[in-house]
C-alpha cells in the first residue's frame, strides 16, 4: 500500500491526558492501574481510570451526547492540538472529503446501565430522559465526533471487540485507497462500565493485582478506559506514516484464542506484505499482551513463527490496562511515541518472562532510535489486526 501520512494524534488514558503525560509515564515506568473501587462488581481486580472525565462538560449544542464515552472522546479532541490539526485538514480537503471511522466495543453503554437501574418499578420502562441514540448506541461515538469536528464525510463505527480501533485504521485506509475520501479521523474509545468488568470477571480473566503481561505468574487482565485519535491523510507531509495493515479471523472460538495462533500470525504476515517489508525490518512490536494465560502464550507462538526471537517486543497494558475497543488507538499512539522518542517501553509488573516464551520480551525500557513498529490488537470473535507504523 501507499504509506498514509499521520498528521496528528491524541490520547487520554490512565497514564494521563496527552502524549507528553503518556511518554513521561512510560519513561518513569509509572503505571496507571489502581485497585477497583467500584462496589458490587464481581471480580474486583485493578482498573485504569482516565482523569478529568467527572468534571468535564460537552459544549451546549452537543449536550445530548453526554455519556462517559463521549466525554472521554471530547477530552481527546481537546488534547495535543488534535481539533486544530483537523481544522487545517478541512482547509486542505474540505469537510466532505474527511471521514470519521471510530472503534468502540461498548460505546455509551454505561448510560444504558444507569437507565436500567432507574426503570419504572411498575411498567419496567426506561427513564424518559434516557437518550439511546446519542449515548448508548454503538454509532454515538462517531456521530458525536463528526458533529464536534464539523466534518461531512462518511462516518461509522467499527466494533470488532478489542480489535475495534485498530481496525478503524484499516477501514479508513480502504476508503482513502478507493478514492471515497482524502483523509480520515480514526481512533476510538471505551469506558469502564459494569458490563465489561462483570463480563471479564465471569470469564475468570480479571487479574488479582495489576496485570502482568508476559510474566510467568500472570493471572489475567486489568481493564482500563481510554480515548484517542489519529488523523490519516493522503499525500500530506508528516514525519510518521501508516506503512501497512493486516487483518484476519481465527475461525476458532468466540472468546478463546486459537492455540496455534494461526490467525494472529496471518494478520502480522499480511501487514508485512502490505507494507512491503521483511520480518527483519521491524524494530519493535507492541503486543496485544492482555496478561491472560492463553492470550499471551498464543501470541508468543505467533510472534515466534513470524519473527523468531529477533524483534524486541512488549505489552504496554501493564501501564494502561486493557482498554478493550480503544486498545488499538492507545497502542498506535504509543507506537508513534516510541518512534518519536526512540523509546522501547519494557513491560510493567514483569518480573520473570514466561520461560516457555520464544519471543524477545522486554522487561526494562530500552532507548535507541527506531524506524518501524508493529502493533497487534486481537478481539473476541477471533478478530485480529496488525498495524505497522514508521518514520517517513
Amino acid at each position, binding site marked *: 500500500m501507499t504509506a498514509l501520512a499521520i498528521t496528528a494524534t491524541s490520547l487520554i488514558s490512565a497514564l494521563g491526558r496527552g502524549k507528553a503525560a503518556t511518554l513521561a509515564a512510560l519513561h518513569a515506568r509509572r503505571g496507571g492501574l489502581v485497585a477497583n473501587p467500584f462496589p458490587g*462488581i464481581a471480580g474486583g481486580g485493578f482498573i485504569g481510570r482516565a482523569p478529568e472525565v467527572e468534571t468535564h462538560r460537552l459544549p451546549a449544542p452537543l449536550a445530548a451526547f453526554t455519556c462517559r464515552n463521549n466525554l472521554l472522546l471530547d477530552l481527546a479532541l481537546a488534547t495535543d492540538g488534535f481539533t486544530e490539526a483537523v481544522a487545517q485538514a478541512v482547509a486542505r480537503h474540505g469537510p466532505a472529503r474527511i471521514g470519521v471511522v471510530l472503534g468502540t466495543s461498548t460505546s455509551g453503554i454505561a448510560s444504558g446501565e444507569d437507565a436500567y437501574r432507574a426503570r419504572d418499578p411498575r411498567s419496567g420502562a426506561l427513564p424518559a430522559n434516557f437518550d439511546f*441514540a446519542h449515548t448508548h448506541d454503538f454509532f454515538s461515538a462517531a456521530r458525536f465526533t463528526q458533529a464536534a469536528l464539523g466534518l461531512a464525510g462518511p462516518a461509522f463505527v467499527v466494533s470488532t471487540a478489542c480489535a475495534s480501533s485498530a481496525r478503524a485504521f484499516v477501514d479508513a485506509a480502504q*476508503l482513502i485507497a478507493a478514492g*471515497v475520501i482524502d483523509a480520515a479521523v480514526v481512533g476510538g474509545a471505551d469506558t469502564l462500565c459494569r458490563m465489561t468488568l462483570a463480563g*471479564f470477571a*465471569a470469564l475468570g480473566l480479571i487479574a488479582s493485582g495489576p496485570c502482568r503481561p508476559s510474566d510467568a505468574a500472570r493471572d489475567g487482565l486489568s481493564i482500563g478506559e481510554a480515548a484517542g485519535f489519529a488523523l490519516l491523510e493522503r499525500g500530506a507531509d508528516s514525519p510518521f506514516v501508516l506503512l501497512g495493515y493486516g487483518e*484476519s479471523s481465527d*475461525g476458532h472460538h468466540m472468546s478463546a484464542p486459537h492455540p496455534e495462533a494461526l490467525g494472529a500470525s496471518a494478520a502480522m504476515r499480511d501487514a508485512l506484505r502490505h507494507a512491503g517489508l521483511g520480518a527483519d525490518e521491524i524494530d519493535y512490536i507492541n503486543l496485544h499482551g492482555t496478561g491472560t494465560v492463553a492470550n499471551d502464550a498464543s501470541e508468543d507462538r505467533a510472534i515466534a513463527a513470524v519473527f523468531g526471537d529477533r524483534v524486541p517486543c512488549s505489552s504496554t497494558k501493564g501501564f494502561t490496562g486493557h482498554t478493550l475497543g480503544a486498545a488499538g488507538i492507545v497502542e498506535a499512539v504509543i507506537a508513534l511515541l516510541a518512534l518519536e522518542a526512540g523509546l522501547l517501553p519494557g513491560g510493567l509488573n514483569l518480573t520473570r518472562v514466561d520461560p516457555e516464551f520464544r519471543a524477545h520480551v522486554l522487561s526494562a525500557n530500552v532507548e535507541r532510535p527506531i524506524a518501524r513498529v508493529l502493533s497487534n490488537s486481537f478481539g473476541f*470473535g477471533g*478478530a485480529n489486526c496488525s498495524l505497522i507504523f514508521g518514520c517517513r
Partner: protein
Amino acid sequence: MLRATILGIGLWGPGLFGWREGRAVLAGANPFAHAEAKPPAPLLLPANERRRAGPAVRLALGVAEAAVAMARNDHPALDPATLRAVFASSNGEGAVVDDLLKTLADPTEAVGVSPTQFHNSVHNVAAGYWSIAHGGRAPADSLAAHDATFAAGLLKALAETVAEASPVLFCLFDAPLPFPLGACRRTDFAFGMALVLAPQASGAGALGQIAARFDPRDAALDRPHAPALAALVDGNPAAQSLALLEVLARGEHRHLAAPLTTGHLRLEVTP
C-alpha cells in the same frame, strides 16, 4: 466511482423468506403477504455454537450462507473460508445486550453475568460465528451507523471490494429488540440481506452491477415502488435496503439514494 458485480443475494424479512421466494414478491409476480417466520437454524455451526447463537446471529448467518451458496453456483472456486466479509447492523445482538443489562441492574444478581452471554453480546458476534462456521481466516468486519447502517455498510463493503481487488460478502441485519430496549429503538421485525460483491464484471451468474459514490449533498432514502414494501422500510434499519433489492429483483436500471449522517450513498444499479 466504486464498481462491483453482484454474484449472490440472500434475503430474510416479513413475507420475504429467501431470495427465490422474495424475488417473485419484489418483482410483483406474487403478492406480498406480511408474515413472520424464524430464520433457519445455521446448520454450519457446530452444535454447541448453534445452541448458543442468538436471534441476530441466526438471521445474519442464514442470509450470508444463502448469498454465498448462490454465488458458488456459477463461481465454485469462491470459498467462504477465504472470502472477506463486512457485517453491518445497527444494534448487533441487542437481545443479549438487553438481557445482560437486566441482570446487571438487578441488585439480587450480585454474582453477575453468564460468560457465554457476555461474549455473545459483542457487536461482531455474527462475524465471529461466521468465521467459526467456516474455519475461515479471512477478515470479517463489523460496522454500525444507527439509521445510516445500510448506506455506511454498503459503502465500506464496496470500498473494500475495490481497495483489496477481492470479492467481499456484505451482510446487513437487525433483529427485534425486547422491552425495554426496544422502546428506544424501533425494530418491528427481523430483516436481513446479504450480497456477494466482486470487483469487476465477472461474466456468468451476475445478478446486477452497482456503481456507487459518496455524495455530500443530503438526499432522502429511495423506497421500493410497491406500497406494501415501502411500508416496511421504517420498521427495521436493515429494511432500508428494500429499494435496492426491488431493483435487483425486477432487473431494472435505477439510481438510488441512501442517506448517511451527512450526505448520501448514490447508487446506480444496472441489470
